[in-house]
C-alpha cells in the first residue's frame, strides 16, 4: 500500500537540507523570544494586578472613606478628651464664596458665625 502513489500512506521525502538546517539552528544561541515572552507576560500580569488594586483602593478610599477618616479623627479627639481643632470656615452662596464673621459664644463647644 505504501508504494502506491494513490495510497494515503505513501512515504514522501522531506525537502532537502533539513539536517544542515537543524544543525545550524542548534548551534545558534537560543532566541530570547521565549524569555521576552515570559517577561512580557510578567509585566502584563503586574499591570493587571495594579489595575485591580487601584480599583479596590479607589473603592475603599473614595469620598465616603475620606469622610469616614475625618469623622474618625473627631471621634479620636473626643475619645482622647481633646478639643476639636478649629478649621477655617468657608461658606458659599450660589457657588460664590461668602464672607463670615465669628461672633462671641458663651459655650466653648459652640461657635457662632455671621454671614456678611
Amino acid at each position: 500500500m505504501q508504494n502506491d502513489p494513490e495510497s494515503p500512506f505513501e512515504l514522501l521525502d522531506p525537502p532537502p537540507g533539513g539536517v544542515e538546517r537543524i544543525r545550524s539552528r542548534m548551534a545558534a544561541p537560543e532566541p530570547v523570544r521565549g524569555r521576552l515572552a515570559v517577561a512580557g507576560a510578567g509585566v502584563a500580569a503586574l499591570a493587571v494586578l495594579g489595575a485591580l488594586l487601584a480599583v479596590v483602593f479607589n473603592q475603599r478610599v473614595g469620598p465616603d472613606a475620606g469622610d469616614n477618616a475625618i469623622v474618625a479623627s473627631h471621634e479620636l479627639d473626643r475619645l482622647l478628651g481633646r478639643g476639636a481643632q478649629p478649621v477655617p470656615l468657608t461658606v458659599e452662596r450660589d457657588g460664590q464664596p461668602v464672607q463670615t464673621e465669628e461672633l462671641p459664644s458663651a459655650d466653648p463647644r459652640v461657635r457662632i458665625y455671621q454671614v456678611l
Partner: protein
Amino acid sequence: MTRVDEASWVELYRVLEKPLYNVVYRWLWDRMESQDVVQEAFLRCWRARDRIRAEGFKAFVFRTALNLAANRRRRKKLWRLVSFDSLPEEPQDVSGTSSVVSPRIQRAIDELPDRLKRVLLLCELAGMSYGEVAAVTGVKEGTVGSRRNRALALLRERLQPQEVMADAERS
C-alpha cells in the same frame, strides 16, 4: 535511563525526520511548513534536553510535532474565517513543488476526527507500535487499536465511491 547526548541529536533528526515529516504533512499539506514544524519540534526537544530521557524522546518529539501542527492548522482555519478568505476549505500544497497527494486523499484524511487521524498516521506513516502510539497520544493500547481500525474503515468508506465510479467508467 540514558539521556539524549548532544552528539546523537543530529543523528536522531536524520532517523526521525522522514516519519515525522510525513505525519505532519498530512496535517498541514504544505511541504515547507511541515519541515518547519518538524524542525521546531526538534529544537524544542533540544532546548529541553536536560529534562528528556532517551526512552521517552520519540514520544515527546512526535507529541510536540503533532501539537504544533494542530495549532498551526487551527490558526490557519481561524485566519481564513476572520479574513473571509475565499481560499478553498481544504488546505493545499502551495510550496511550488509537486503536490504528491491527490486532493481526494487529502480530503478523506482531513475529514477524519483528529483523535482517529493521530493514531492512524502514527501507525501507518511513523511505523509505530500500538504501545508507542499510546505513549504519544496518552490513550491505552487497546484504544489505539480500535481507533486505528475505525480510522481505516472511515478512510476506506470515503475513498471507495470514487474507486467504484472510476471502475464503472472504465468498464
